């Protein structure tokens, strides 16, 4: 049982280069925009493109003091289903908590590979959605959309506003809007 129930905690499991840092910081900045307190930080291992990595995100209506990594998440986001074999992604994820996973498999197939997990599984083909909308396999905006619809920690509007603010200059307006459409598609995906 969590002591501090006001703090919403998320772990992103990803491989280096998949944009988990950008995803968690996007949600963090949107939460600050809405007046919440946040902490978003990566597990700094040996940073290599493709190596398994984790990002931690806390959002609260009160100041967050603790600096420790998230141990008991409310939601877990898995950006690549091959991580299921190498990381214990459902650790401390209880019955009413959610696993969001980028996969071509069905929730039933994922369930089979996680026999002990009793929580909710949100399986979506984020890579396919990203490819069809933006033309590249950056799944992080799609998964942020899904995280927002599952958790309601921030609004889709705030996340879109922050994304526009940060990325319009970097990737251009057309690609920015495509990514926001990808985020919205992730949000709407059942």
């Amino acid at each position, binding site marked *: 049982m969590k002591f501090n129930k006001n703090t919403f905690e998320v772990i992103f499991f990803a491989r280096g280069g998949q944009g988990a840092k950008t995803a968690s910081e996007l949600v963090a900045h949107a939460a600050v925009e809405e007046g919440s*307190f*946040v902490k978003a930080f990566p597990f700094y291992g040996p940073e290599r493109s493709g190596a398994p990595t984790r990002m931690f995100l806390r959002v609260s209506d009160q100041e967050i*003091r603790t*600096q420790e990594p998230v141990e008991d998440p409310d939601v877990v986001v898995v950006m690549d289903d091959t991580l299921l074999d190498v990381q214990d992604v459902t650790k401390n994820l209880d019955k009413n908590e959610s696993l969001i996973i980028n996969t071509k498999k069905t929730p039933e197939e994922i369930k089979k590979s996680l026999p002990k997990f009793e929580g909710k599984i949100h399986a979506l083909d984020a890579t396919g959605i990203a490819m069809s909308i933006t033309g590249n396999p950056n799944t992080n905006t799609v998964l942020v959309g899904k995280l927002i619809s599952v958790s309601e920690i921030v609004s889709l509007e705030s996340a879109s506003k922050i994304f526009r603010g940060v990325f319009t200059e970097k990737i251009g307006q057309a690609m920015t809007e495509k990514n926001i459409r990808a985020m919205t598609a992730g949000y709407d995906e059942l």
Partner: protein
Amino acid sequence: MTGGYAVAEALRQIHPDVMAVYPITPQTPIIETYAKMKADGLVETEMVQVESEHSAMSATIGASAAGVRAVTASSSQGILYMAETLPVVSGLGLPIVMCVSSRALSAPLNIHGEHGDVMAVRDMGWVEMFAENAQDAYDQTIIALRLAEKVGAPVMPIMDGFHTSHTTERVEVLEDEIVRTFVGKRQTEESLLNFKDPITIGTLALQNTYFEFKMNQEKLMQKTKSAFKTICSEFAKISGRKHGFFEEYAMDDAESVIVMMGATAGTAKEAIDKLRAKGKKVGLLKINLYRPFPYKEVGSALAHIRKIAVLDRAISFGAYPPLYQDVMSSLHFSASQKHDIASYIYGLGGRDTMQSHIEKVFKDLEEGEIDNKIKYLQ
């Protein structure tokens, strides 16, 4: 924003004339953010890209001696590489601010957070202050600049590498105008470049005068304490945020207290709330100003506490760790009763310190597991 960004933002508002930089993780976000601000035309600071940290501090010394406002930033081996110049800065009384993102020392190679680097240079005559989070890092950069120029001593505002420098948090930023009015312009009567009134900076002082130079420097360090206090209360007026020698958290009726500095104090606060909810009388004394050390004030804050654990994020080979030694000295001179004081070392090389570690320390204190051996929170 991250701690690194928050420090760069404070520096942008301070707007130094010169910033000499050499990158090193986990300090680099400060200077790369500042370099982007410069490229975007937000600041006019002369950024000098040098070939090493020794040159970074040397260039900063030259600029500061010439009478302008000069700053730099560093970490770990970078601080040690410039160590030769650090007592030059304090000996000359130059008001240089060096923003530090603290990190472990090689070997073995490790880029993660620890206080080993700043502890290694704690006797170099620099003021050292420790931040708990990105907000503190922002605030302390502004306080550091004001303090340095007020007393003529160099200051290191220190945040924990990665824990604070790379964590995205909510930070309240003051208006540019308010910060600029608060730090003002650097006022100096002496300048290397004033040819009408030439002066010598960095003179030779032999057996007959060197001793007195050092005594004067120590006198200045003591004055720094009261100046720090005044500046903190002025800062509270513009920001509404309290800073001071230390923060007392849940100390009123506490029976067991942890003394520590930096980012992990936040984790300790959370653990203390949890233990308080179970009726445990536990508290925290978080040190903000480490050099000069507020011995008398720490002594009186802890005078009524029987059981104390001092947590150091640094190791002092063959000796008790640094903060423990300072707390022991504080209590030695003002002890009104017997204390049981334990020493713990945590978080070396970025090792995670969990609330469960903090709970274990309080359990040791409660059960009287206190002796003169150093314990390790691995």
